[in-house]
Structures are given as structure tokens and as C-alpha cells.
């Protein structure tokens, strides 16, 4: 087993849910399949989903909900 760190594909604000009253897309410990939505990144009021390109188990998030992220910044660790 190898733990990989997945980076933010673009800069913006990271969201772990689709709305303030919605459940989070993924919690730590959740299984991740290819194509799963991990979160959203808002760039200038436009939202882009962060899609898993690899399957595994989500070990830990490096950012909190509504945190500012830069492109390439560590988003989450995946045990693949």
C-alpha cells in the first residue's frame, strides 16, 4: 500500500460539500472510486468538481472546507 498526495488542479476556494447544509462528498476513511467527486473548487464564482482519478481509501484532508488553495497545493492523501 502506498499513500499518495493528491494536489489541487486549479486555484480557488475548496469546498467539501455542494452546499452549507449538504453532507460532505467524502470523509476521512471513505473508499474512493475513479470518478468520485471529492470536493469543489470555486474560481471566480464558477465551480469545478475535484474528481478522483485513482481509487483507494481517503486517508486525510490537507485543507478545510472553504480554505483558499493554490494550484498544486496538497488536497488529500489517498491510500491506493
Amino acid at each position: 500500500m502506498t499513500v499518495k498526495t493528491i494536489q489541487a488542479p486549479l486555484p480557488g476556494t475548496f469546498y467539501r460539500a455542494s452546499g452549507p447544509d449538504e453532507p460532505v462528498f467524502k470523509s476521512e476513511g471513505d473508499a474512493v472510486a475513479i470518478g468520485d467527486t471529492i470536493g469543489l473548487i470555486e474560481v471566480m464564482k464558477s465551480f469545478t468538481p475535484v474528481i478522483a482519478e485513482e481509487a483507494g481509501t481517503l486517508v486525510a484532508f490537507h485543507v478545510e472546507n472553504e480554505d483558499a488553495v493554490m494550484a498544486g497545493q496538497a488536497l488529500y492523501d489517498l491510500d491506493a
Partner: protein
Amino acid sequence: MAIQSLFIANRGEIAVRIIRAARALGIRTVQAVSAADGDMLAARLADAVVPVGPAHASKSYLNKEAMVRAAVESGCDAVHPGYGFLSENADFAAMVEAAGLIFVGPAPETIRRMGDKAQARREAEAAGVPTVPGTDGVVSDLAAAQAEAERIGWPVMIKAAAGGGGRGIRVARDAAELATLFPQASGEARAAFGDGGLYLERFIARARHVEVQVLGDGVRAIHLYERECSLQRRRQKVWEEAPAACLTPDQREALCASAVRLAERVGYRGAGTLEYLFDGETGEFFFIEMNTRIQVEHPVTEMVTGIDLVQQMIRICGGETLALAQEDIRLDGHAIEVRICAEDPDADFRPSPGTITALAVPEGDGLRFDTMLFAGYQVPPFYDSLLGKLIVHAPTRAAAIAALAGALEGLKVEGLPTTTPLHSALAADPEVQAGTVHTRWLEGWLEGRAAGASSPSASPVVPSPA
């Protein structure tokens, strides 16, 4: 009591604009900055800066408590909210006043009253300002609908009372069509929403967006003529003009007089805008809503009237009575503003934050560029995409469009894609030049353009409006 020290509760180009206006009035400026904005132009220009929170706007520029605290602690006696963010938040205006500061805008009660669409519509009706004709609630049956439609005027839009977002809307051009469509719409609404209730509203196929700029001191109000902002994408204005070339002098007079009546009725203080739909085919105009703040497109009005609206609102809210009389306001020529945004018009307007590697701004008579940019500036991804506004002023509309085309050639914003090429294409478009556009024209034009781009052999497409 004149304002001595002004807190700017906003960012971007409007913060720069407010700082310049305040400085011209000899007022000290204190700029609010989020964690992402320490290097922005307004922060460089202001006399002082105060951090107000993290990058995310909900924790900084939308944080009422943090803003009021920063304004008080930095020794300011007034707060300018700009546009967007907290500018039309009545609770924020009330908190500023409760802290003993001046809110550069109307009274909190006015913001609240005009921010409620139904209440604003009632105020308009009471002031004798036309609103979009429609039924007062649900119509009981077809006979009632026929009678109401005759009163409203054809064509009428049939809307489901329980619907939303345009669902279940039908348009009837005459009594025969209404007789067919009304029962259909009712049945469909019952099936879809469990409620067959319908109401009717006048349908305006080619509505134009016109809006009147007003200034008031709480008692007296004047207008500074109108703007036309019919070129919109997803309800966002992209190109604005003053005056509205579609109006006759009589229509202009009636429209602007109606705005003054409504502004005086609500005791309006500061700069405000009344938005209307204009039906070019019938010459009728209908009030839709009021924006109780300075607007993005205010410079076109400044260019054709010579009045500095931001200075005026600061002076009035600082306690001066309105120094201008209606006769002082004269229209001179034609002005156009285009919004230069960090978006890629060739990639479905994808947002494009990044670093400005080089900047060249055209200069000359009748040219103005209101911006937050400088070479080396890193445009943050956290806020809206507006980078600046290119404004031209010329004796006629045709000359203004020609001047705009030239100015766009001279504007070089390097380092990220912007909407500049879109505006060059619009300035060259025969329909834009003829002024025969309406609020849904641009989206049709963009679709036609995208379709043309995917088949390289196709000749340039100018679609008929949707």
C-alpha cells in the same frame, strides 16, 4: 458634518474608484483587505489598510461584524460599501449607523423596502410608475383569464403559480391561443406541482434593459438620465451605454421623470438606479427593481453628464443637501463601457485568474479605464472576474463605437485571457452598430458564433434573436 475619514468595505476596481473620489474631496481613506488582497491596487493607494479576514468573502468582505469593527478601530467616521458584497444589506447599514458611523448609501429602511421586490413594486405603483402588467395573483378560470388578458395587453405569458425558474411558461398571442393554452397549462401545472393555479403577465419578446441614475438627499431627487444595458450574458451586463439610443426624447423625459417620482417618494439618499424593461415595439417602459448603491456601469453616466457620482454620494451622505438642480444636468454625446473580465470568451467564458505580465492602457480624449490592474499583479481566484472597465465618450453613438474599437486595439492585458476580443467582435457587429439588440440577443449571438467556430467553412453567423 463632512466626512473626514472613509472606510472602504469593498475591493477591486470600485475600491480604487472610491479612493480617488475621496482623495479629491480631501478625505482620508482606509481600505479593508482580506488575506488574499494585501497587494491589490486599492491597498497600495489608500492612506491605511486594515485586515478584515481570510480570502473567502464570507469571512472578510461579507463579514458585517468584522467590517464595522475595522471601520471603528481605524478611526473612520464613514463606510462606503461599493457594489456587491454588503452594499445592499440593510442590516449592515443599520450596524454601521448603530456604531455611530455614516453609511454612504440610503437609510437602512430604504434598502430594506426597495430590496423587497413586491414592496418595491407597490411603491412604484403608488408613485405612478408603470410595472409589468399582470394579474393580481391567480386567475380562477378561462373566462377570467380572457378578461384579464384584454386588460394586460397581448401577448401574455401564462405562468404556473407553483412553478419556478421558467417552468411551464406559455405565451398566448390572442384569445384563441389563450383558449387552447390555458387549460393545457393548468392541467400540466396540476400534474407537475399538484397545483393548477395560473397567473398572467405581459410578455415582452424583445425587452431592452434601460435604467435611470438618480441622486437624492432624502428629500429632493434628480435624475442623470438613463443607461441601456441590453447586452447581457446569464443576466450579467457586459456592455453598457448612455444615453439609451432606443428612446425618443418624449419617452426619455417620461422615463426619467418616473424615476425621480419614485426616488422622492421613498426619500432616497445617495446614488441609486431604477431598472426598467423597455418594449421598443410599443414604446412602453416598466419598472422592475431598484439598486440602492453605486453601479458598475456608473462611468457612462459620468461621461455624458460630467458629474462625479461617487463624489456626489459621499458629499450628500456626509450631510450636504443635493447641490445640483435638474436643470444642471445636461446630456453631452454618447458613452459606452465594456467590462474587461478575466474570462476566456473562446472557452465558454472559463474564469482565468493569473498574473498580469504586461499592461498597456490606451489614453486620449474621451477615454477612461477604471481598473484594479498593474503589471505584475496577481489576480486572485477568490472573487469576481472583473478586471476593469474601458469607457469611451464621443459626440455620437457611431463615433463612440468607432472610438471603442480603436481603444480595444490599444488595450493590452497580457498574462491571462480576457473578454477584450469579445468586445472587439461586438463593436464590429452590424446589429450592435444598428442598436437593434435586446436582453436575450447576446446569448443567441454567442451560440451562433460557437456553432460557426465548430464548422470552419461556415460564413460568419448572425443568428436571428431567440
